[in-house]
């Protein structure tokens, strides 16, 4: 590696570490903030997530090579890790570390955007069902029952059949639209429990429209569980994306995603194990970080001994 990517890499690491310390200073003021930072694995999770996010955002600086470059398809393919190629090269002689950095844009981006879709749909449907009740609620909740009865990957396989080479935007939408079922149940339960509370009755008596009651009064109270399930969902979506891409139905080459990189390496597993190993390890680390952060957030919002 030359000087520029090494400096950028160290810079990304320092930035991630520093940002966590700043957050820790701010969080010290509140009880839930202190409880969150008491979870050491969650703090490491935030560091890892920030690092990969910064690296993905600054990919042209951090990546030592062009991720699509195939400098020596005959001489440089499947090179083991070395100083020039810290994670080795793949079957097309591309630098794996550079592809990992750029692949983070795709994998993290899909995880975040698909979760945004899933949460928007889930919150809307859950709130409408819990507030309207009656037949609207019955229909929506039966829909959720059906959605939960099919393993998500089957649903995605069915949907993916409509495209020959699936565009990224559609993939994000599909991942989001198959992931809102449990969230809507959660929000519905929350809306039901808040329904008869005095402050909600007061708002309605003052003439607030149902939309206003939902957005101004119900949602803020339900925010904590929604945030927790959103954070846990990002990791879950990233695993699904990796699985779909591994089967060849997700992100299409030559776009690098961490899942496609594991799939590309499968063919030369015995010959060049590093081609699959590092991308898969990155997925595991990042998903683990999301899960650790989600667990700690749940504990911070709602302290109970069993979550400690």
């Amino acid at each position, binding site marked *: 590696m030359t000087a520029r990517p090494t400096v950028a890499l160290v810079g990304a690491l320092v930035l991630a570490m520093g940002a966590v310390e700043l957050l820790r200073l701010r969080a010290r003021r509140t009880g839930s903030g202190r409880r969150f930072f008491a979870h050491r*694995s969650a703090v490491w999770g935030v560091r890892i997530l920030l690092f990969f996010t910064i690296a993905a955002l600054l990919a042209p600086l951090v990546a030592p090579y062009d991720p699509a470059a195939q400098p020596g398809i005959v001489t440089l393919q499947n090179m083991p890790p070395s100083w020039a190629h810290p994670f080795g090269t793949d079957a097309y002689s591309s630098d794996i570390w550079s592809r990992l950095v750029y692949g983070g844009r795709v994998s993290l981006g899909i995880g975040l955007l698909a979760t945004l879709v899933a949460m928007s749909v889930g919150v809307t449907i859950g709130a409408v069902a819990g507030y309207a009740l009656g037949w609207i609620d019955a229909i929506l909740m*039966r829909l959720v*029952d*059906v959605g*939960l*009865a*099919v*393993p*998500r*990957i*089957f649903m995605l*396989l*069915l*949907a*993916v*059949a*409509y495209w*020959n080479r699936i565009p990224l935007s559609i993939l994000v939408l599909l991942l989001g639209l198959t992931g809102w079922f449990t969230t809507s149940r959660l929000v519905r339960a929350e809306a039901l429990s808040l329904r008869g509370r005095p402050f909600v009755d007061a708002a309605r008596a003052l003439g607030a429209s149902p939309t206003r009651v939902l957005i101004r009064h119900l949602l803020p109270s339900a925010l904590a569980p929604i945030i927790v399930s959103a954070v846990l969902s990002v*990791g879950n979506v990233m*695993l699904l994306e*990796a*699985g779909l891409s*591994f*089967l060849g139905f997700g992100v299409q080459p030559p776009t690098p995603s961490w*899942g496609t990189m*594991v799939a590309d*390496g*499968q063919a030369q*597993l*015995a010959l060049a*194990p590093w081609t*699959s*190993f590092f991308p*898969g390890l990155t*997925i*595991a680390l990042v*998903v*683990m970080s*999301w*899960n*650790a952060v989600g667990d700690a957030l749940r504990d911070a919002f709602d302290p*109970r*001994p*069993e*979550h*400690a």
Partner: protein
Amino acid sequence: MGGGGTWLIRRIAAAAAIVFAVVSLTFVSIHLAPGSPFLPPPDRPLDTAVVARLNRQFGLDRPIRVQYVLYLKNLSQGNLGYAFSRGQTVRSALATAIPDTLLLAGTALALDLGLGLILGIILAARARHATDLILSNVTLFIYSVPAFWLGLVLVFVFADWLHWFPAGFPTSPGLYESLPFFGQLGDRIHHLALPALTLGLVGAAGTARYQRAALLETLGREFVRTARAKGVSERRVILVHALRNSLLPLITLAGLSLPFLLTGSVLIESVFSWPGMGRMATDAVLARDHALVTAIAMVASAMVVTGSLVADVLYAAADPRIRERAS
């Protein structure tokens, strides 16, 4: 108890309705997808006139509601249709694939629950000690690992490198038929080890985290304090008093882990060239094999729904408080 009986009947009816909805939605979805079982993606070109004739011959050119009614009529007579991509009936295709998937998923579930339970007890007993901190991070890592990648790592270590286990297939091709009975059994176990371990480990990590939380919650209850006050040893408090009461959620967890096992089997069967339902689903969708896709969705959703139904019934049978409320 009459109330309990109607509760069960209503649950079964709801489960059947869900499976029916899944079948209908899958049927419509796969029929509307572009392509035809006679014209799979470009690698198998066929004359368009031939494709049109085949479509007409098998009724695939008729309106979808006509095909749907016909499908339901056949289904009511136990006829699942013909799997064009495999040249056999859907029934015989399922009959070869389901046992392989059940063998893999069943072994994985046993590993999942057994290993997860033991790990969960250790984690809860050593809560907030170094053992717990280290093992908790290890279980969180395994819980977060992509299952197919864990499969590849195990293949590299135990098949490619150490040569302890074969890298794929349920039996040794060519050799299996010539083995005596116990040789065949050994061969099967030998082949089952890596895929079942992969799926079981990921599942066990989740179960252990769940069991740890359930056990810790129980350990905070009044009757545990009473037992400790009586001078019962800590070992007995955990293994007898608390464990019994924390086992109930495990029933639900076992019922709910079916979707996880089915999802895992789609990917794991691909890694280990395992000819089960998961791999068949992928191939069938690619080949637009309408009847096979619909049948697989039916079997998968029936498994999931039955799993949660059985879990609910067992839970009610094990916990008198639930039984009271249901009836």
